[in-house]
């Protein structure tokens, strides 16, 4: 669960179980007194909303909807209100990409991930290399060297064995490329119609060889936000591969193992210079920036013109009315680094084959806390919020 349990990580337990659920009016929510100047009234409403957003999340739906899997607001609510509530412990609570454990004195990172992408095969990859790279990357984002993976398969009756061989071959190739071994696994078969061909789950352990403490809660004013390359390519490629839109563009998934490039960055900056690493999967870069803003209690200001986005991705997103900031990558990450080392960080990333398009995309400020602001290319400012609902199909 850790792999995708990214939540607004005041991950620590709520003060006590008595916090009122979101949306319930409190006395402090009394409407502004009549005669209050317009601007002050607006500010009061904004403060009231900020308070409402800090309340303990509650799942109001009686059933799971697709929105719960979108990686956006509904996913975070589900994780906080159901999973974290049931499993709460100090290692899960920070809701990082993986858990950091001390096993017999050795610092270890541990993570798991499930893959349900449709279609199973797409330009640039398939569910197999996605499943390996996804878990490798979650370990890499903990600052670990990925070592061993498990693989679980849920197969639908009637699924072609040839397709399964294709998937396992690309898993083997991806594992070899990432320097990990798949050392244990499990297989289940369900009746026709009870699954969509093939689902894969992977878990992984990695070794924390560097004395790093990475967390989205460690950003502070003056820090810089860096991305390791052009964003949104995996999600855009998948959307086109589904063929729902009748659009064709030369787009391939960016799926790749990130422990090499992440390690290069960690080694190049002084200790503590890298505050946080997150791979920008489901929910895209926007989701990560929000996690940083909320967990660290800071304002992240991103510059639209600085965002590296390939023309094809911009074009597809424009046609579909989707913001590239929310579109998934499977081979890019966001790093929050000490502002003084921002240039060095970009230089190191660009020196790696997977980081040619790396760029500083924003800065960290103190006010207004918990928000992500975007300076638009047009010269205005707006909020970048968590994704609401599920505008995107299954992408990972």
């Amino acid at each position, binding site marked *: 669960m850790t792999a995708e349990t990214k939540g607004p990580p005041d991950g620590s337990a709520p003060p006590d179980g008595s916090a009122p659920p979101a949306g319930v009016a409190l006395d402090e929510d009394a409407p502004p007194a009549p005669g209050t100047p317009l601007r002050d009234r607006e500010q009061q409403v904004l403060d009231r909303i900020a308070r409402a957003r800090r309340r303990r999340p509650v799942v109001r739906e009686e059933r799971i909807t697709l929105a719960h899997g979108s990686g956006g607001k509904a996913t975070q609510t589900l994780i906080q209100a159901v999973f974290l509530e049931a499993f709460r412990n100090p290692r899960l609570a920070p809701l990082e990409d993986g858990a950091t454990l001390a096993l017999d004195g050795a610092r270890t990172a541990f993570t798991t991930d499930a893959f349900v992408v449709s279609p199973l095969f797409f330009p640039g990859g398939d569910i197999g290399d996605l499943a390996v790279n996804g878990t490798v990357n979650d370990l890499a984002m903990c600052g670990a060297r990925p070592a061993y993976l498990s693989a679980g398969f849920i197969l639908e009756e009637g699924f072609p064995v040839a397709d399964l061989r294709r998937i396992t071959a690309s898993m083997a190739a991806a594992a070899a490329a990432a320097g990990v071994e798949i050392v244990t696994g499990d297989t289940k078969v369900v009746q026709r119609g009870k699954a969509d061909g093939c689902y894969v789950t992977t878990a992984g352990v990695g070794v924390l060889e560097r004395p790093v403490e990475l967390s989205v809660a460690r950003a502070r004013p003056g820090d810089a936000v860096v991305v390791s390359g052009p964003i949104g390519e995996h999600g855009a490629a998948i959307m086109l591969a589904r063929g729902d839109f009748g659009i064709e563009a030369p787009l391939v998934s960016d799926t790749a193992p990130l422990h090499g490039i992440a390690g290069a960055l960690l080694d190049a900056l002084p200790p503590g210079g890298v505050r946080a690493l997150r791979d920008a999967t489901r929910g895209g870069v926007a989701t990560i920036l929000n996690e940083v803003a909320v967990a660290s209690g800071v304002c992240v200001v991103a510059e639209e013109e600085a965002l590296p986005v390939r023309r094809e991705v911009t074009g597809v997103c424009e046609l579909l009315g989707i913001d590239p900031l929310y579109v998934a990558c499977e081979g890019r990450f966001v790093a929050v680094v000490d502002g003084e080392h921002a240039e060095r960080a970009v230089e190191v990333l660009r020196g790696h084959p997977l980081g040619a398009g790396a760029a500083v995309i924003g800065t960290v400020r103190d006010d207004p806390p918990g928000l992500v602001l975007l300076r638009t290319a047009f010269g*205005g400012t707006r909020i970048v919020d968590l994704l609401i609902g599920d505008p995107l199909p299954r992408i990972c």
Partner: protein
Amino acid sequence: MRFVDEYRDAGRARALAADIAARCEPGRRYTFMEVCGGHTHTIYKHGLEDLLPEQVVLVHGPGCPVCVIPMGRVDDAIHIASQPGVIMTSFGDMMRVPGGNGSFLDAKAAGADIRMVYSPLDALKIARENPDRRVVFMAIGFETTAPSTAMTVLRAAAEGVRNFSVFCNHVLIIPAIKAILDSPDLRLDGFIGPGHVSAVIGCRPYDFIARDYGKPLVVAGFEPLDILQSVHMLLGQLAAGRSEVANQYARVVPWEGNRTAMAAIGQVMRMRAHFEWRGLGFISHSAMALSDAYAEFDAERIFDLPGLRVADPKACQCGEVLKGVLKPWECKVFGTACTPETPIGTCMVSSEGACAAYYNFGRFSRERVREATLS
């Protein structure tokens, strides 16, 4: 990207913003309504308010297709979707719109076969591929989307696809604008006119606004520079004491509209005597149903509908927001009980809804951010 980048140029925006400021008379306040939800979305998405002088106030209008669907119609659609053998198809925007008893998304989670489509033709394709199922298209929208619904019905008729029908909720923009002009609550100085609707109906139907109500209207495109330019044109008319219909979006909107599209609507649809609009109540001659000649494609005649009128939740002030009387944040439940993830009102659902746009893009103090930037 061509036809996009040139309408988002920051340099041209700054120059135009300076011209706009120069056209404003000192001490005068200008209130313009952007009728179309697409414009509302652009305004917030690009942070356009940062470029306008404080004297120019934009209020958001009723032109959001999802926002004006009353709860009773959502319930009717879910009732249809719950019938045996039915596949309900709908634009994605509609999925989270709350009815009296949940949304499409909830009905889907409870077992109804509801599928998202990008065009009514996709729905027709699903009907062809599933001859043993009854496929219904939830048709919503203004004159922008009505032609594609009409064309799809014509094609279904031509191909003899008998298991396809349309639940028609198409509405008309002119009666909505008229309802706002006749509302005593609001004083407007002019309109930023809808772009895509006008590509179908043309610019002439707005003449009465300029002639009878003395308000200028500029039909506008959807890029941020389009909107700035439209504000500039409105201010120009006001400065000269004129009120006319003008077309800023001539690259897409022909003055006479699209006659082929209008003819298709005319062939397949008929005017309803009344239709209920969310928050605005019943408006005469404001919506379309399928005509008798195409009754066999009309879900309202095929299915036995409850047709119950469901009152909007008491706390919800969508009506006032749709009429531009309230700014989104002035609604009592805005952002606390009503949020995009748990919407009470429709304005919080659609990306074109004023409340959703403000919540998702504008929920911060411009003043505080400006101060922080300068410091």
